[in-house]
């Protein structure tokens, strides 16, 4: 609560300072000059418009010109833009300059009214509301009040229900991928199967599952199926027996869909053997089954078990044993 203890000791408000006349108020020459300046600014705007029209018609849209700072710039885009900018900008500058120099600049005082209504009005208002509400019987007829509450509470449900068909139920789609036992790894892009000998130590390959002929690869598939294949020296691994058995001669495969928010984790640092997600910088240690060593992700990237098929190509030993990508409520594994 502000107090006014020093009410009688305060400095005094000297009131609005006297109006100072501008040069344009006293000197007709200056006023005429200002008028010419405003007119010139409006003319600059008109020139801008003409320039815009001319550049639209006459400049070849494939022509580039060199300008310092900007570099090789598309001439038409630049001319259209600067022309438009000038045509707008100078209208504004002209109007403001006009207002500042030639329109009255004496400050005026307007009184404010307090928003609070008079006490009688307020009392009247309250009694009117009470009276009218009483007339409707809201206070007395509790049956109506309650049933109305019920119906109003429920009425919003039907439009919500109608939104149900926005999409299908997730079922287990978040937990499944196209990977299954025996599915070949193929390069992305290129769709070529891969032999272990195709990868040297230190090499990576972006891979996708080979889809049966006639199946189209959709973005939804890629969003779950994308896998990164990395070849290390077998002695670099620091894996438990099961995870080691999922590798093949130093070749290890991880889901490329980040376990944090689903970006493509494909940034492999060959020397440190770390995978880094460029979105939020979760860092995974490839030698320790993509254990999280930095950043916000709470889970390792799921590992894909590898083996060879009869022709010597890399295939999945089995599908992913856990859902790939970001977490969700129904996800049941650590």
């Amino acid at each position, binding site marked *: 609560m502000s107090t006014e203890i020093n009410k009688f000791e305060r400095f005094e408000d000297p009131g609005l300072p006297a109006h100072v006349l501008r040069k344009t108020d006293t000197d007709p020459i200056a006023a005429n000059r200002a008028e010419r300046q405003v007119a010139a600014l409006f003319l600059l705007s008109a020139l801008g418009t003409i320039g815009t029209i001319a550049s639209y018609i006459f400049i070849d849209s494939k022509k580039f010109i060199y300008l310092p700072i900007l*570099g090789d*710039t598309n001439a038409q885009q630049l001319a259209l833009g600067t022309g438009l900018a000038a045509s707008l900008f100078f209208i504004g500058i002209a109007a*403001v300059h006009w207002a*500042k*120099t030639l329109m009255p600049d004496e400050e005026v005082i307007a009184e404010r009214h307090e928003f609070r209504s008079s006490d009688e009005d307020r009392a009247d208002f309250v009694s009117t509301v009470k009276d009218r509400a009483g007339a409707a019987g809201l206070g007395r007829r509790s049956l109506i009040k309650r049933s109305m509450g019920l119906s109003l509470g429920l009425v919003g449900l039907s439009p919500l229900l109608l939104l149900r068909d926005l999409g299908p139920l997730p079922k287990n789609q978040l937990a499944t991928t196209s990977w299954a036992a025996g599915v070949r790894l193929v390069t992305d892009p290129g769709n070529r199967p891969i032999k272990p000998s195709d990868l040297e130590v230190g*090499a990576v390959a972006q891979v996708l599952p080979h889809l049966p002929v006639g199946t189209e690869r959709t973005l939804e598939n890629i969003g779950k199926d994308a896998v990164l294949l990395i070849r290390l020296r077998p002695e670099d691994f620091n894996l438990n027996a099961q995870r080691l058995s999922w590798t093949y001669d130093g070749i290890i495969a991880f889901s490329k869909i980040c376990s944090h928010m689903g970006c493509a984790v*494909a940034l492999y640092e060959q020397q440190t053997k*770390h995978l*880094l997600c460029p979105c939020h910088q979760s860092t995974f240690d490839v030698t320790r089954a993509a254990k999280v060593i930095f950043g916000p992700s709470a889970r390792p990237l799921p590992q894909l078990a590898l083996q060879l098929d009869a022709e010597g190509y890399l295939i999945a030993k089995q599908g992913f044993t856990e859902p790939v990508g970001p977490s969700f409520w129904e996800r049941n594994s650590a």
Partner: protein
Amino acid sequence: MNARRFRRQKFAGPILVVAALLTIGSAFSIASALPSAQKSEVSAQSTLVDEGKQIFLKGCASCHGLNSEGGAVAPSLIGVGAAAVDFQVGTGRMPLANMSQQAMRKAPLYNPTQVAALGAYVSSLAPGPATVDPASLAWERDGNVAQGGELFRTNCAMCHNFAAQGGALSNGKYAPTLMGVEPKHIYEALITGPQSMPKFSDKTITPAEKLSIIKWIKSANAEPAIGGASLGRVGPVTEGLLVWTLGLGLLIGVAVWLASKAR
């Protein structure tokens, strides 16, 4: 310093002998397999290896070891091939100026002949990817720029950024910009995996696809400023910076002028 010189002198003799034997041996074996008309070329090759070895002992051995076996601070060079040498030395990354930081592209210390000699020496130790002959990289003719773009975005953009401007790796490392890098060096980097970069084998990204990648990089490098100043092509960060500095700065500047009294 003295100790190192001493060690170098101590080992230099035997190593020179072994290396000379190796060189002569390999030269002989190659020579005997070749028709006699090419004999002179072979002897030129063996002098190149010798020359490379001299350069190696002077400029590289202190870190990579007298036998290129690697050391505490440097990897082994056995089997890396002439391509790795051409990339590392040809782009000036090696020799390192400073141990503590990542090898940077800079003016090469050795001239192309010396680089070729070093490459010949390193590839004489064990076979590895050979130096890429720029003349054989017909990327302008054989590359497909759209396919290159798709390959680049799948395999390269996560480190080097969407417009090949480079990007951050963990712990202060970075993927360098690819602006102005020679096609043969891009190709060599792809097959040798320098520093943090992994290798991209010819079977997973075919030589033709590599040419397409080069063509796309060159096309992105050469792309004019279509929409005006490119702002470094690093995404929304610089755009936001420009709005808060130049954009709001100009607008607030005008507002101050607008609200000030004319004299």
